[in-house]
């Protein structure tokens, strides 16, 4: 589904990613773990297509298409979804109205008929009910006045409504209490199937107690320094990231 080869990315003059190789197949769950400033969020954002990130080397291919030639929205329409670490608040833009615009933009791209307001409302209300998200979310402005936990739930709601193929959860666990974390994890697990792939970006192992990854990758200083199964996360929990930093500095 997603193939990343020798990816180098910089912001301005500073190189953030320094040769990433990663292959994600449909149905797989990959966890990207690493310390602060290692480049985890940059990896998420470069896949999403953030314009101020410059790819200086390497390739990024999603379902046989070169992502580097596609704009942010074109990538989203092909099924790439990033749940933001800090979702943006837009006062005055109704949450559900925005989601309908987004869903219909993607439906238009796929050549499907747009959903009417009432059809979309029914669908959204059912999803909110199933996820245990209060119906008042539909009346509020996009992420405006939302708590950290509510913002993350709203990202999950968007994920359900947009039905993407590749889902990147950028520190979805940050700022969540244990109940909210469990809710998010339950939602992710029930959304996961053999056609969808997940990339979980996180600092901590605690998210992986609830969502079991097939692969864990350790990202330090812009490079994947080790890959393995879920046991790698346990190792990190015990020893931290210092062993990798020491290796790189030596």
């Amino acid at each position, binding site marked *: 589904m997603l193939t990343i080869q020798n990816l180098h990315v910089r912001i301005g003059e500073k190189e953030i990613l320094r040769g990433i190789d990663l292959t994600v197949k449909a149905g797989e769950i990959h966890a990207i773990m690493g310390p602060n400033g290692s480049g985890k969020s940059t990896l998420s954002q470069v896949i999403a297509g953030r314009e101020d990130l410059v790819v200086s080397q390497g390739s990024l291919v999603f379902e046989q298409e070169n992502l580097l030639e596609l*704009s942010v929205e074109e990538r989203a*329409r092909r099924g790439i979804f990033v749940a933001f670490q800090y979702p943006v608040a*837009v*006062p*005055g*833009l109704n949450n559900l109205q*925005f989601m309908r615009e987004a869903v219909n*933009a993607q439906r238009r*791209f796929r050549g499907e008929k747009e959903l009417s307001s009432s059809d979309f409302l029914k669908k959204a209300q059912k999803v909110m009910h199933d996820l245990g998200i209060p119906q008042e979310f539909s009346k509020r402005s*996009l992420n405006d006045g939302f708590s950290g936990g509510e913002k993350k739930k709203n990202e999950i709601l968007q994920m359900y409504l947009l039905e993407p193929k590749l889902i990147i959860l950028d520190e979805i666990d940050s700022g969540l209490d244990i109940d909210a974390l469990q809710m998010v994890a339950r939602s992710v697990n029930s959304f996961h199937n053999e056609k969808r792939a997940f990339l979980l970006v996180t600092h901590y192992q605690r998210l992986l107690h609830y969502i079991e990854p097939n692969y864990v990758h350790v990202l330090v200083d812009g490079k994947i320094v080790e890959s393995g199964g879920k046991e790698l996360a346990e190792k990190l929990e015990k020893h931290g990231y210092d062993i990798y930093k020491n290796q790189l500095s030596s």
Partner: protein
Amino acid sequence: MAMISTKTNSLLELAQFWSQRLSPDFSLRDHEKYLYTPLDAISFGISPKEPWHRALGDVVFHNGYLAQGDVLGMEDAPAFLQEKYLSLRQKEDDFLCRYNLAYSPAFYYLPLRQNNSKITIADSERRHAVATSLLCYIPPGAEHYLEIHNMAQETRLSHCHIVVFLASGSKLQLLLIHELDEPSQSIVHLHFILSVESQAVVYDLQLSGKLSRTSIEADLEGERSFFSLNGLLLGRGEEHRDSTSLLIHRSSYSESKTLCLSLLNNKASSAITGNIVVEPRIREAKAHQLLRSLLLSDDAKAFCRPQLEIGSHEVNCSHGSSIGELDQEALYYLQSRGVSKEEARQLLLKAATAHLLQDLAPIFLPTTQERLNYYLKEVAYG
């Protein structure tokens, strides 16, 4: 400078007045400094040497009380209104409006007996310039919704001067829409006189046309009177928008709110001047003013000038101004969900207007919603 009487109505007198205005000694630049507006475009768009057939715009009073073409002179208005209006005219210092008023030989007097009215100012004969004067009186305790639609087409200049008297305890919500074709220019001067406990809420939507300008003067003469101005100025291409307001608190416990927002793309420009005056010895007046501009292109220009002149100690006043661009993080976030950059811009522009229009009376929604969506899209796409 020669004063123009409201009784001035001969073409000869008007032409003479016009020639004086074109003399080399007449400095438009002083005025420009005040408004930040390229007034040459307004003032010299019409040459006195060109023929002009009639000077009065077509006013359609949709409630049917006045038929199109009906003109009632000032002599039909209550005497105290005539007196009041003439005294106000003497005090006007905005000579551009006075100068354009020279076109207007008569007034429409609108005794607003129903609780809502809609007036369309058009120019069916597509003349070079039209001018229209309206005098509105809201009786004591009445509540009124007034919609004024200035929609000149292929007209170089449409000027409208509206005076509204709000009697004690009356309430008015006024929706003013400038919607012109590309070459046309529109100037509307609104003057409000608010009596005790009266309220006026104005929505000024400047949507299209080469140049539009709303000039508002509000005299909060009665205690506990309230005035609110909500201005939305949309510009694209090389259009220019202008909002100038002068709100004078002449009585204690009066309150005013000003919120103006311009959204500009391409080479469009806007000038927003907000002036709040609180006269000496006025107690517990409240005045809040916020002027904002969002630029969608590097070539768009915005000027904002918030001003307070506080003559009293017991007041609660604030003012602010900002000029910026659309939030790039928000734009990226919306795009990451699959909407195009232009659609995302449109959504953000609509969001920016939400606060401004949140209290718009439902009676105005049929007029505004589709129009706003259309013009916001035009601005977003540029």
